[in-house]
């Protein structure tokens, strides 16, 4: 299958790639670039495990073709910690025990990051609504919500 030139900016780094048009952004990130932190749970956009941030918005990367992401700025879970410091959301997930197996965690953290970047001043109800597209099968969500609320509080306090 003919490949197409695609330029992606991922976690601040430029990647000039030749990819098959049938490859999803998720497959490009995982298999072509080698960023395996983003997970594939359903391939149909239902579980949110593959959530990354594309131009500021949380996106399920299994539902985006790699070729259509050309020119976009993408942040994955690998791009969140900076200078050896965890992002407050990452830290909050660790502190509260907001994950068990950890497989849905990158997606939850990226979805939460997009929400908090947009507006950290949200109620539990609003976070529940906004995170409704991410499925966790281990935690029952209680400690995930505790983590997100704790991180949002910290971000509000520090901004």
């Amino acid at each position: 299958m003919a490949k197409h030139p695609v330029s992606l900016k991922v976690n601040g780094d430029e990647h000039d790639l030749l990819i098959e048009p049938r490859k999803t952004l998720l497959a490009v990130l995982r298999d072509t670039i080698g960023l395996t932190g983003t997970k594939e749970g359903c391939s149909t956009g239902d579980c949110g495990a593959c959530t990354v941030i594309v131009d500021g918005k949380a996106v399920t990367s299994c539902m985006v073709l790699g070729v259509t992401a050309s020119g976009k700025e993408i942040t994955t879970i690998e791009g969140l910690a900076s200078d050896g410091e965890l992002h407050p959301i990452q830290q909050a997930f660790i502190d509260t025990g907001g994950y068990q197996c950890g497989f849905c965690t990158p997606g939850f953290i990226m979805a939460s990051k997009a929400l908090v970047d947009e507006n950290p001043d949200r109620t539990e109800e609003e976070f529940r609504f906004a995170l409704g597209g991410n499925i966790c099968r281990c935690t029952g969500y209680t400690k995930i919500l505790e983590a997100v609320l704790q991180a949002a509080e910290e971000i509000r306090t520090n901004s």
Partner: protein
Amino acid sequence: MSEKKEYKVIGTRPIRHDGVDKVTGRAIYGADFQITGLLHGRVLRSPHAHARIVSIDTSRAEAHPGVKGVVTAEDLPAAEDKMADLGEGAVSLKYLCDNILASDKALYKGHAIAAVAATSPHIAEEACELIDVEYEVLPPVLEVRQAMESDAPILHENLRTSSLGETGDKPSNIASHFQHKKGDIDKGFDEADVIIEREFVTGTVHQGYIEPHNATALYNPDGQLTVWCSTQGAFTVREQLAEILQYPISKIKVVPLEIGGGFGGKINVYVKPVAALLAKKTGKPVKVLMNRADVFEGTGPTPASYITIKMGATNDGKITAAQTSLVFEAGAYPGSPVGAGAMCVFAPYNIENVVIDGYDVVVNKPKTAPYRAPGATNAAFGTETVVDELAEKLNIDPLEIRLMNGAKEGDRRADGPVYPRIGFIETLEAAKEHPHYASPNGKKYHGRGIASGFWFNIGLESSVTINVNPDGTVNLVEGSTDIGGTRASIAMQAAEVLGIPAESVNPTVVDTNSIGYTAVTGGSRTTYATGYAAYEAAQDVVQQMKARAAKLWDVDEDNVQFADGEFSSINGKEEQISFRDLSARLGETGGPVIGRATMNPAGAGGAFATHVVDVEVDVDTGKVEILRYTATQDAGKAIHPSYVEGQIQGGVVQGIGWALNEEYIYNDEGEMTNASFLDYRMPTCLDLPMIDAVIVEVPNPGHPYGVRGVGEVPIVPPPAAIANAIYDAVGIRMTELPMSPDRLLKAMGKI
């Protein structure tokens, strides 16, 4: 053992040793694994629920550019008439192998037929479509009552019913029937003033782990087979591979990578032997990944069931008799968890007269697999609903009737065991004292429900070694894959013994060549049994280091004591050295210290839970909203309370999904019509309140810190608790799971 013992590490909440890896995307799960020269495998699955395989022609697929190899059941060693020993009793090797790649019959839609290895996953998928399979389609049977009929389509011509020691003389879908009896059931019902008898039906549900099954296999030319995968137990994968491939265990190494959830569903192998066959055929490493539809259609769900419960009680609330028939779907091959269901069905209550009948029935659905307290949730749905109805008829509070009849130390379960110290009554008392139970409940269409549950927990084999580092830290090596924080709960038990912080223990989960046999992470056994092994290995370290201190001080070993991280000399010389300082002097006192322990502990204490739930029923749409949920549970001793709470909250929510939405929906042809996360509706955070987890601690006498397994029992009470709450809200007894909007509307007579 004192119930008030003070600990330094046990009961604290340190962060997980794998914490950073899992929030930064660095943890390597099965699908993330890479190796040079990797090929990609894909499995072709049966489109029919029941069909004879007439022929398979792989020639077009083999000729497809990029295809490196195709395998079918013919590539598996001949399995006829052999039995496989997987440590938990013999199973038919043919059944085991046929579930990996069907030989003569496809027994469910999604049954693996053939597999392709190619240079890309897309090419492998294309090639699957080029495999020509001729099927003779047969009528499927999808429900246990139908499967038990004498004229039902037969799945296995050679299957004969094994019933109470007798073997049937004609083909049947009933694989087995067993019975437990206690007391005199007729006398028990004669003594009863009130008798309730009800039928219950539960749907087929899936474990629903978010990470699909995966495996990467490599056959080296020297005959060494290595499999990298996510699994609940690397050693059980090794055993299954050895049996299915008829290959020596000494030539198989299984490397467990991080696992994205299991709940019992990642014990049985599916694509691992397929990857191994493809690797052997191609001489290259092959990775096989399932997609979500494969997971739903090709891996073990937990069984649907048909259950009858009959219970009788006197006017003052004493339950005098209980009888049940548990009919469980095994899926395509025998082996449902009906045995475990029978152990749990009346386990919370001390009842003198009991009869339990269990039936294991094959149907044209995927072979069932364990799912969190397998069998117990189905059973408790029936029992706990009937107990609620008894309480109502007798005008007794539902917590009180449970307190009056609740099992205690010394009581005997119908299937045999006599309880050691257990904490069921304490969970009821905790629920009774919780502000939730005293809070108002009386709004229109609001209701409150109570239910309890039991899971027996297991021990099994675990091995741990502990290497002492010169800086006073230790490296703990274990074989238990960590699904939910067990690196921490195991390391903390070693840290407590050694008098060092949890952070000074570095736990590593290793492959089957690097540690002694360790059974699966399952049965709520890991913190209990592998934690016990860590405790014993740490004791071994202490013993060895006492000898080193004795050598340093030139005293007798018996004159060295160890407490609070300090070795000191007693009887004479005043000497003292910390664990840390002594660890720097191991070289000069005889070389490194490695503590070791292997265990197969018999004292896994059973776990009880009592749940209180408030719901609101929307009588126009049939939707049930969970307003408040409180779960009390006896954890024995919570090593890491946050992670115990997490287990409780997670189990409750799986139980809520089972109660309200989750089920395999089949059409008449036996095709699952909702094999996606969109249509198989698992709870999201939108559907839930915060779950209040209340830990009760009644120490298990079978563990040095009193640990009981905690993972499984929280899934057991929710369906019954919610059914009882729905009854309280709208006066309708729901007896079929899930209690989805359409079923509820139907029950209310609205549709």
